[in-house]
């Protein structure tokens, strides 16, 4: 069956996020009282897997091997069966 994995990649807490800082300044310029902004990216991967656990393991491997750089980033994975909505 097909699964959709949402891999959320974020800069680690101790790594500076200049994009987040720029967005923070821009939001403040709009009058928003913002304390902090951190940016990241979402990578959506659709693939075949035996079951949800297998899909999660595969997505974790993708995160370790390529999607995140462990030196500067962490990632979280959300997995669900592919449906019209998830797509």
């Amino acid at each position, binding site marked *: 069956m097909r699964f959709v994995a949402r891999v959320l990649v974020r800069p680690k807490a101790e790594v*500076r996020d200049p994009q987040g800082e720029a967005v923070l300044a821009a939001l403040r310029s709009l009058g928003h009282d913002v304390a902090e902004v951190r940016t990241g990216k979402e990578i959506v991967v659709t693939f075949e897997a035996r079951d949800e656990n297998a899909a999660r393991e595969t997505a974790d491997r993708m995160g370790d091997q390529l999607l995140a750089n462990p030196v500067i980033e962490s990632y979280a994975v959300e997995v669900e069966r592919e449906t019209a909505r998830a797509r």
Partner: protein
Amino acid sequence: MTRVAILRYPGTWSERDFAHALSLIPGVESEVQWHEDTNLRGFDAAIVPGGFSYGDYLRAGAIAKLSPGTKELRRFASEGGAILGSCNGFQILCEAGLLPGALIRNADLAYRSDWVRIRVESDRTPFTNGLRGAVLRMPIGNGEGCWVADPETNARVEAAGQVAFRYVDERGVATAAANPNGSLGNIAGVTNETGNVLGLMPHPERCVEALLGGTDGYRMLGNLAGARHGTAPALYR
């Protein structure tokens, strides 16, 4: 003859500049190799030039690290081969785990195209023989040149003498103002533990002739001849 291979990935753009620079060095011959056909057997050194390999998609160097050429670089490095990565080449070597740390977006978010001064901190590399303490003036052109590492890695790199270059001002002092991108410790380049792999953000290949505004790149690359023959090229002896 010292034989140098110059790798070309899709999006690499400095390979011809490196080939030209190396053509000026007596006793050095070079060959540009497509990353899918890279074979470093019989070569003395490999260069990973700058550019935008794979369009910098995902992260700079992230996709190039999976290429057959990078696999060959790993083998070459493990056998003690000399490898130099500049700009995107530095990013690729970090992504591939051949060098410590990572390069992230410049602190001020700007693409920096400028001349910088870097102080040579280590002469334990085949490219910096006899240059320790020298201040070299070189061009940079990058948007993701900010070197970072976790505190443990950073401390290890500093303690082990793996810092190869630091950004400095005209007095040779590593000030915040002299740091073009926010790199930890003003670091412009690092080596691996054994010193045979070196990466830096500046472009030595773009300053090898007075016509280009400087010749300090030749002082570095000229070592490629010296490393093999035991002497510096006559021009800079």
